[in-house]
């Protein structure tokens, strides 16, 4: 067992390291991917391009517009004075929001009668629109509170609402709700999955296509020895990827890594059993590299979409949620985010780790069983 495995490993490492494309995949791709994700996947809403549609043109209306701009969430892009122009700017995507204040706003406010202002949002990006609206109502709420205070002071110290409920929210683990802290560690799951799965899906089928497998399967090598010999180098590649991405995350993007590093590697090892298992299974049942590549992509997209990376699993239909229970990405993602952001340990994460172990052992043993030492 050991001797054959050793021979397999020496050969696999020589092949991997002598291939310049493999070196590129191992060392360059993770860095590039992390940088791209780190910069591109940014769901923080800041400086929403806004048009001010101020028909009142009073000190009050100007003050409100000022509050919006000073908050940092809205950026004054244009001033408009008719509906047509406002519509046009939204249509062309030049602004995402229009703040409209009608004539008579100041009059009503001063008279204490209450006034309305309108926020028109480009709903095509519902996520940004929702967040912007949220900011807008906070700004308006703050302004209201101040108006009421002033009004009360002017009318003999009477406050309309002597006391109220004020919501003080704090986001734990990610105080400023930096989306980078949330997404960059998760990039580990994606890159490790993509690279190890794609590479291992080529591993066996490449030997089939080139024909070298014919000389190997006439030897008494065991199926397990062969498959294990194929997987171990990719486990190492997976570890290298995790290391590179974590370094970029921590030192370039300054994402906090609060949990234990050995646990990070242990979880990676568990996850790699699944990702390599899937790749090797694809590789053993495919006839050509092209076929294997197509199958790998066929697995890749649902695995990433149903991992919770971009879309929360809780908001998926129930049936789809059950489906995610066999997705190793889902569990690894929870573990990685927890290790980076919460710094929790095995005591909390064991269910996810157990799930990875179970899925991994199942897939890997299926791959060994499906590997046939025959041609055709």
């Amino acid at each position, binding site marked *: 067992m050991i001797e054959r495995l050793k*021979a397999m490993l*020496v*050969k696999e490492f020589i*092949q991997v390291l002598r291939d310049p494309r493999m070196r590129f995949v191992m060392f360059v791709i993770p860095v590039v991917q992390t940088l791209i994700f780190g910069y591109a996947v940014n769901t923080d809403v800041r400086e929403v391009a806004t048009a001010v549609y101020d028909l009142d043109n009073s000190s009050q209306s100007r003050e409100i517009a000022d509050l919006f701009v000073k908050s940092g969430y809205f950026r004054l892009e244009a001033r408009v004075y008719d509906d047509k122009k406002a519509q046009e700017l939204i249509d062309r995507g030049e602004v995402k929001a229009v703040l409209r204040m009608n004539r008579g706003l100041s009059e009503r406010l001063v008279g204490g009668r209450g006034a309305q202002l309108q926020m028109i949002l480009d709903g095509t990006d519902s996520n940004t629109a929702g967040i912007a609206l949220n900011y807008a109502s906070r700004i308006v709420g703050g302004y209201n509170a101040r108006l009421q205070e002033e009004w009360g002071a002017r009318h003999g110290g009477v406050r309309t609402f002597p006391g109220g409920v004020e919501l003080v929210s704090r986001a734990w683990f990610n105080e400023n709700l930096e989306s980078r802290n949330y997404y960059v560690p998760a990039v580990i799951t994606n890159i490790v999955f993509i690279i190890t799965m794609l590479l291992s899906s080529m591993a066996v089928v490449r030997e089939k296509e080139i024909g070298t497998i014919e*000389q190997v399967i*006439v*030897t008494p090598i065991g199926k397990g020895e062969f498959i294990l010999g194929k997987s171990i180098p990719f486990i190492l590649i997976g570890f290298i990827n995790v290391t590179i991405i974590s370094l970029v995350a921590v030192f370039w993007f300054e994402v906090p890594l609060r949990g234990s590093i050995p646990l990070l590697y242990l979880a990676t090892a568990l996850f790699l059993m699944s990702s390599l298992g899937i790749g090797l299974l694809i590789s053993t049942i495919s006839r050509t590299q092209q076929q294997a590549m197509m199958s790998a992509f066929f697995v890749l997209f649902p695995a990433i979409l149903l991992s919770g990376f971009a879309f929360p699993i809780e908001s998926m239909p129930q049936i789809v949620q059950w489906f995610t229970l066999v997705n190793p990405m889902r569990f690894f993602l929870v573990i990685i985010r927890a290790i980076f952001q919460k710094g929790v340990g095995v005591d909390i994460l064991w269910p996810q780790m157990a799930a990875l172990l179970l899925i991994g052992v199942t897939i890997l043993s299926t791959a060994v069983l499906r590997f046939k*030492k025959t*041609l055709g």
Partner: protein
Amino acid sequence: MNGANATTTGESPEAQVSLHELTRRFGDFTAVDRVTLDVARGEIFGFLGPNGAGKSTTIRMLCGILPPSSGSGTVAGYDIATQSEQIKNQIGYMSQKFSLYEELTVEENIDFYSGIYRIPAGKKAERKEWVIEMAGLAEQRGTRAQALSGGWKQRLALGCAVLHEPPIVFLDEPTSGVDPISRRSFWELIYRLSGEGVTIFVTTHYMEEAECCDRLGFIFGGELIALGTPAELKAGFPGQIVEIGCERPFELLQRVESLPGVKSSALFGAGLHLAVENAEQTIAAIGRELPDLDLRMERITPSLEDLFVSFMQAQGRAASS
């Protein structure tokens, strides 16, 4: 063909390789059709046949890497359908297409197979040197296989196939693309192995190599159509051979083919060989029909090549009628 029946029947206990009605189909197509033969210990068995005859398919079944569709076979006493893993400990195999790792060096390829075959640590170095010396690869130890020329690749492949000293060796066209000198040294090695009691099952397209075999099987369209020693096969040749030396053999070929009594004809070196019923009659007939040509005609004893050309033409005619 007369010699065939004598040796095909029964599976002798001495047989190292034994096939009985072995058949392999790919869909509707039958690549190997009920082949029955035995190969004795230490024998060099040559498997001949044109392209696509089913030689490689047969060898793959015997090596346990291609399941037979029907029929049976044993190698070293193990059943090819059910005991392929035991067989793999007993055989060396050199595939028709170079199947070692191109990106590994000569030594790395040898080391890989010596690990896979679990050659004991104390013997590893010795076996490696034996292979390198035998294949004459001393100067190319560190060369990647992809940089070796065709002949060197074949030697390396043979070396890796016999590294673990298997009692039975299957060689699928081991000398294709190898120059005549290297081919000769290749065959010296095959004799050496055979002298040590190794059983050798080899396919080839070269008739001079076929002459070197102890026994031959000729396969055509998946069917074994002749089996016997080279001498037996030649003695069993049905008819006589006329050799014609002439200037433009190709033109003559078309003119003599239609003559009565000519069963098959083929270009041969600088002339023609005709397989005929009666050499004297044919020589006389050609002299009458084509008096204008200055032809040197002579009856000769049939060579293996004559034998196989006439087999193939006879089968071809049978198939088309």
